[in-house]
């Protein structure tokens, strides 16, 4: 019986831990995709600067207000521009970034097709 009690207590402790982790995970997920603008090469999640700490508080606030992950990205993009997102959308500055891999892939495919398939 005593062992069973202990087991229940340990199980409860573990689930409480799990709940806490879930609460923060959405915040962490978002802050990992936001660039800390005043640090070099760090995300808001990684950084402990004044700017990043304020951003974390604001992300929490926006989540409490009921904004979705996407809405929060749009919100920050409006204020700071594309640079704040680690995953920028397709626009006139980033089209090369998005299209180049596809172009290279097609070009490579064409070479393979020409040299192997057409030869036969």
């Amino acid at each position, binding site marked *: 019986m005593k062992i069973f009690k202990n087991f229940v207590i340990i199980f409860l402790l573990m689930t409480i831990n799990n709940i806490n982790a879930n609460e923060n995970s959405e915040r962490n997920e978002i802050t990992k995709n936001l660039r800390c603008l005043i640090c070099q090469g760090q995300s808001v999640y990684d950084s402990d600067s004044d*700017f990043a700490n304020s951003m974390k508080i*604001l992300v929490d606030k926006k989540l409490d207000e009921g904004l979705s992950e996407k809405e929060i990205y749009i919100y920050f993009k409006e*204020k700071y521009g594309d*640079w704040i997102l680690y995953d920028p959308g397709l626009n006139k500055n980033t089209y090369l970034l998005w299209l180049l891999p596809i*172009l290279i892939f097609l070009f490579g495919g064409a070479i393979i097709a020409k040299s192997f398939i057409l030869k036969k």
Partner: protein
Amino acid sequence: MKKKLIPYSIIFTFLIIFAVFYKSLKDTNIYTPETKINNDIPIFSADLLLLNENSNSTEIFELDKFYLLNIWASWCVPCRDEHPILMSLSKNNKLNIIGINYKDNKKNAKSFLDELGNPYEKIIVDKNGTNSIEWGAFGVPETFIIYNNKIIKKYIGPLNNELLLEIQKIIK
């Protein structure tokens, strides 16, 4: 066929490399923050320093008036440098100067203003820095010019005499 393909592919690769380098080498690789302007001002409510009351954005910013919003802190050294410029701007009655006290404690902020003078009409308390982020600020000091609830100009870093003339030209 194969003989022709190799030189063509080499030329093609070099063209792509050339295009990428031509485009990106012209840009500076030192990140300069985008000064996004013509954004609407954020909607917020905050405590005011010195007045001990709560206020919100519609109360502070009226239409058809020029506002200068300055983010400052008593611990920020460049803020000390730009303070005389804010003092001289405060003499202009066309311009209302609003301050945001960024991550500061009240006592230090008050003694800073006692020592150097208070150019601000109202000072918004921003204890955790979130209000500044809502404005799209990077840190202290930073200055915004606001007209009709729109940010028409933004200066990152301390103001100097050149910018003073520029601001005076804008509000004329």
